């Protein structure tokens, strides 16, 4: 079932939690709402669910599930499945009863027979690989297991859309990884439309078909993870999606200067701030004709596919983070305190005042 939001806004007393928002989510899509806390992403999700109502004035927004207008439909009649960050399981009921709950509270004429309920619950428990724990109480399960129960419970009523509010937020890193993959697989298998909220950019980019980046009650960008990472529309999106290094300075005749550092750029004269991702910095023993950026290594973390190196210099306000290949790391025999030269392979620039698209440059 597709979801269409038209002009959805929300005020909490005098503060605006959401500016009027339009959003289309296609049938079968898995969409991530990504943003820092206070960006309005959870409010938006709760409005879709019907747990919160959108503003009626000055203009009433509209929420459509497929062709069905659900704007004024109560949460219990919206046919949604909702998964809470802290599971919200019914603690006094067994796992089985939790999953069966949505089926047993159906009005008599729609309610499946008890045999059918049993069969359906066990099918769901099998799907979340918890059939052997059907008689346990929630308190006897681990966090990851509880969240799987809560997912099975939400899916039991065969909802039109599945909404997940920071579903993996309360779990530890390893379990989170597993559950993420597992949810993606489940989604591909059953092909329901789902929307999930997260503040973890990695989670959003890994899991979603499309990501909605939000800040301050506004949608900043909606795109596939790939497009989002490669061509962020503005500085907020760029900075939110990963580590960023800043280079501030004055451009004069195509040379950006900052203390004793300088870099050739193809930019008009004036103050400039360039942004660089850690993997866009190359380190060498010698400066080049295009750039002279002397830095000192202050910390090294060799864990993972690449070595993370922290760089400092007196012309830098905040230390830089660079990632280098293990081969380069060994070739240059990097050590703490070593002085090297940085070369941007690539840089980004966002002018705040103009709405012009980001300019990207290539150096050396």
């Amino acid at each position, binding site marked *: 079932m597709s979801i269409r939001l038209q002009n959805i806004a929300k005020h909490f007393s005098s503060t605006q939690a959401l500016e009027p928002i339009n959003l289309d989510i296609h049938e079968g899509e898995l969409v991530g709402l990504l943003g820092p806390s206070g960006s309005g992403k959870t409010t938006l999700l709760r409005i879709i669910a019907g747990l919160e109502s959108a503003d009626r004035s000055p203009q009433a927004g509209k929420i459509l599930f497929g062709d069905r207008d659900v704007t004024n439909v109560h949460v219990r009649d919206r046919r949604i499945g909702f998964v809470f960050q802290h599971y*919200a399981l*019914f*603690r*006094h009921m067994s796992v089985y009863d939790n999953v069966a709950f949505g089926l047993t*509270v159906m009005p008599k004429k729609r309610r499946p027979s008890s045999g059918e309920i049993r069969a359906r619950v066990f099918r769901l428990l099998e799907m979340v690989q918890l059939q052997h724990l059907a008689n346990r*109480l929630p308190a006897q399960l681990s966090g990851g297991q509880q969240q799987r129960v809560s997912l099975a*419970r*939400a899916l039991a009523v065969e909802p039109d859309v599945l909404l997940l509010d920071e579903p993996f937020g309360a779990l530890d890193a390893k379990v989170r990884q597993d559950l993420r993959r597992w949810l993606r697989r489940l989604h591909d298998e059953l092909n329901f439309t789902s929307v999930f909220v997260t503040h973890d950019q990695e989670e959003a980019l890994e899991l979603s078909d499309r990501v909605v980046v939000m800040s301050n009650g506004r949608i900043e960008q909606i795109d596939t993870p790939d497009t989002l990472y490669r061509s962020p529309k503005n500085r907020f999106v760029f900075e939110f999606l990963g580590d960023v290094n800043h280079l501030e300075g004055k451009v004069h005749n195509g040379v950006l200067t900052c203390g004793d550092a300088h870099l050739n750029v193809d930019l008009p004269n004036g103050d400039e701030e360039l942004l660089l991702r850690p993997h866009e910095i190359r380190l060498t023993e010698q400066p080049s004709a295009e750039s002279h950026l002397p830095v000192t290594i202050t910390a090294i973390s060799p864990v993972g596919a690449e070595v993370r190196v922290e760089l400092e210099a007196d012309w830098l306000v905040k230390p830089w983070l660079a990632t280098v290949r293990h081969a380069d790391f060994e070739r240059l025999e990097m050590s703490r305190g070593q002085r090297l030269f940085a070369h941007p392979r690539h840089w980004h620039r966002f002018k705040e005042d103009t709405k012009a698209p980001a300019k990207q440059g290539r150096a050396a």
Partner: protein
Amino acid sequence: MRQLAIWRPGSTRVLPGFGLSMGISVLFISLVLLLPITGLFGQLAGLSLAQYWAIISEGRVVASYMVTIGAAAVAAVVNAVFGLLMAWVLVRYEFPGKRLLDALMDLPFALPTAVAGITLATLYAGSGWMGGLLEPLGFQVAYTWVGIALAMAFTSIPFVVRTVQPVLEDLPAEVDEAAMSLGATDGVAFRRVIMPHLWPALVTGTGLAFVRSLGEFGAIIFIAGNMPYETEITALMIFVKLQEYDYAGASAVASVVLFVSLTLLLLINIWQGRFVRRLHGGKG
């Protein structure tokens, strides 16, 4: 699994001061609780079993048990309903004056019970504000068991509110929301999701209120009318016997009240413990 702290000579503890704090606690309990009870049983020692039985099964005393238990039961049920409602209102809604209402909840504890009793008696007597309204309609409250129940309800309502309130606060609103998102109506959500959580607290609170009502004296005697066989409460019987310097008789009746109260408290505790253990998966 909760481990009972047992003191072993020579064992070293991380948490200091066990000996001293335990000693003072035991001393305090002995002085304040155990000593008076021992005194009570000491008084009983002068009675033979037959005499004891004669005192506690005397017609007027038995009538007072009926009045006390009946009125306390009514008061407890009324408090269970209204106490739950008040706790619900105080926890789930935001409204101006909420803190004031919350503080008022403890008024029955703060007010001397005799003051409460005189106030209630004045209000509900035929000449009082409430009595003046109710009596023409045929409802007599003052000097009947209804008045007794009313005074009991007044003094014991905080027990229900204050035991249910924290449990309700502990129950996240998300649980209601989850039930509703699964299609449950308000009634079903309340019955199947919220009530099972509140049960133990509600029963405990009601039980405490009931036990408290059994022993209430000051608030009741002014409104009860104290007619033998009709509106005499057991606490009054004890008082009457004391006035007649019949200390053994007073102790005998008191021991009955004490026995009933203690048994009830013990039962509530055991039952609640079992329930809580179930809820926390045997880890409570």
